[in-house]
């Protein structure tokens, strides 16, 4: 029983790590209706930039600032050379454009910083905490705290500000948003820059866990089912989805895995998400598509 709880808790905490990446997705989707597959590459790019600078001896906070600036520049470039030219196109087109984008960012990241594997120490100790016989990862608890802060900040942004409403308007109908004078370009810049920031935070935490390297861009694959269970349009959903996925996939791997062969963590979250979707086709907190005739 104690073991069960240990797996459960560990899973919940791991799930929050997925949420961190999922939040980046939700942000962009909610604000512009774009399903941004390049979020993973942005995570990689941010982390790689960060460690590479750090390894050159630049102090931590300065590095953080420079990397953030880089992400803003990246957002600017994306807006300027891609989004601006894809105004009012169907969502699927934008999705595919972000696939292209992810290739570009990955290529760029490796071209600039090379393909080596870097270690990243954030100075957060990862000696496990003992709690009633269970081991809890300090690092994961820290990450969960960061995710919580992010969620509070972003919820405020979306629900309490004018920008928030404009963002949702853009997601619904770009042409109409233009017609009422919303500055699409500025909105995109803001959103992508914030997504870059979220990517950086996720990149640092994931990077500290995995080492900074190419595989970092694959964490999107873990974030997708989270996103889907939570719903594309809900920041809170990303957290709940993360908790559900994290806990259930760990429990499944530990308790079901041995029965059917192990290594089921790659597909289990997807199947779980599928089951959720069959009951709620837009995720737990997602907005339903409106179809009126």
């Amino acid at each position: 029983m104690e073991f069960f709880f240990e797996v459960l808790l560990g899973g919940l905490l791991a799930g929050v790590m997925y949420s961190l990446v999922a939040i980046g997705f939700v942000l962009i989707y909610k604000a512009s209706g774009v399903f941004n597959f390049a979020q993973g590459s942005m995570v990689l790019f941010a982390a790689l930039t960060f460690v590479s600078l750090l390894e050159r001896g630049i102090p931590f906070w300065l590095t953080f600032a420079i990397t953030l600036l880089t992400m803003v520049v990246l957002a600017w470039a994306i807006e300027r050379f891609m989004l601006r030219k894809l105004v009012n196109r169907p969502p699927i087109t934008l999705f595919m454009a972000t696939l292209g984008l992810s290739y570009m960012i990955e290529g760029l990241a490796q071209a600039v910083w090379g393909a080596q594997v870097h270690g990243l120490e954030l100075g957060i100790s990862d000696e496990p905490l003992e709690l009633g016989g269970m081991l809890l990862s300090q690092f994961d608890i820290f990450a969960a705290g960061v995710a919580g802060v992010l969620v509070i900040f972003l919820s405020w942004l979306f629900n309490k500000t004018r920008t928030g409403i404009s963002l949702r308007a853009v997601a619904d109908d770009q042409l109409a948003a233009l017609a009422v004078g919303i500055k699409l370009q500025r909105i995109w810049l803001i959103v992508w820059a914030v997504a870059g920031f979220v990517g950086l935070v996720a990149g640092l935490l994931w990077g500290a866990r995995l080492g900074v390297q190419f595989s970092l861009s694959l964490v999107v694959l873990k974030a997708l089912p989270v996103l889907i269970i939570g719903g594309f349009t809900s920041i809170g959903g990303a957290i709940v989805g993360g908790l559900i996925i994290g806990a259930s996939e760990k429990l499944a791997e530990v308790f079901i895995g041995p029965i059917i062969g192990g290594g089921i963590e790659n597909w289990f979250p997807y199947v779980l998400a599928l089951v959720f979707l069959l009951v709620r086709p837009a995720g737990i907190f997602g907005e339903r598509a409106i179809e009126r005739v």
Partner: protein
Amino acid sequence: MTAPLLQLDNIEVIYDKVILAVRNISLKVAPGSIVALLGANGAGKSTTLKAISGLANAERGEVVDGRIYYLNRDITSATPDSLVELGLVQVLEGRHCFAHLSVEENLLTGGYVRHRSHARLNESLEKIYHYFPRLKLLRRNQAGYTSGGEQQMVAIGRALMAEPKLVLLDEPSMGLAPLVVEEIFEIVHTLNRQQGVSFLLAEQNASIALKYADVGYIIESGRVAAEGTTADLKNRSDLQALYLGLEAA
């Protein structure tokens, strides 16, 4: 004579680099006037309006020739948001509400650009509810679920929230009950008289358009086929049967 508020000089618009939608259109809107664009389906009315408001670009359209002036500046390639800031707002054909936003939020989005303060926003909002009491009832409903006519009201109301100087109205009467059509044109009339707002409207309902407009242009296959004051147009027998269908009025 005062300088026109809006002026189009021989504009040509192409969609997708191949579809020539507007061949050669010149027109003027004098400050404080109401101008109607009439013409058959596909004549190029909507395209003309979108070219003015800068929205054609968003549909892969392009003004390839000619110039557009508004408030004496060249706005041929201005962005829609800068035009809204200058008080030029378009109501799109086919409603285009933000489906997931509530009716009230829809209206609010229209006001952001021109109003910074909360109070002003609410003031405008009340004005719109005054014009369209039905919207007040529906203020918390998601716009996507409202009826066709209600959406049309939302779209018009949203544009008026910006307190514009020039409104481009694309088929305002479409899908509206006769009473509401009358009301809308009354609103147009009032705004025009009281606040000097100018209107450029594309309208299929020629009788009502000509009733309220000062000047009319008749568009045929992307060209101006006839123009003049509404009084003149109504008297031109060659146009009556073809475009204006006035015998039923």
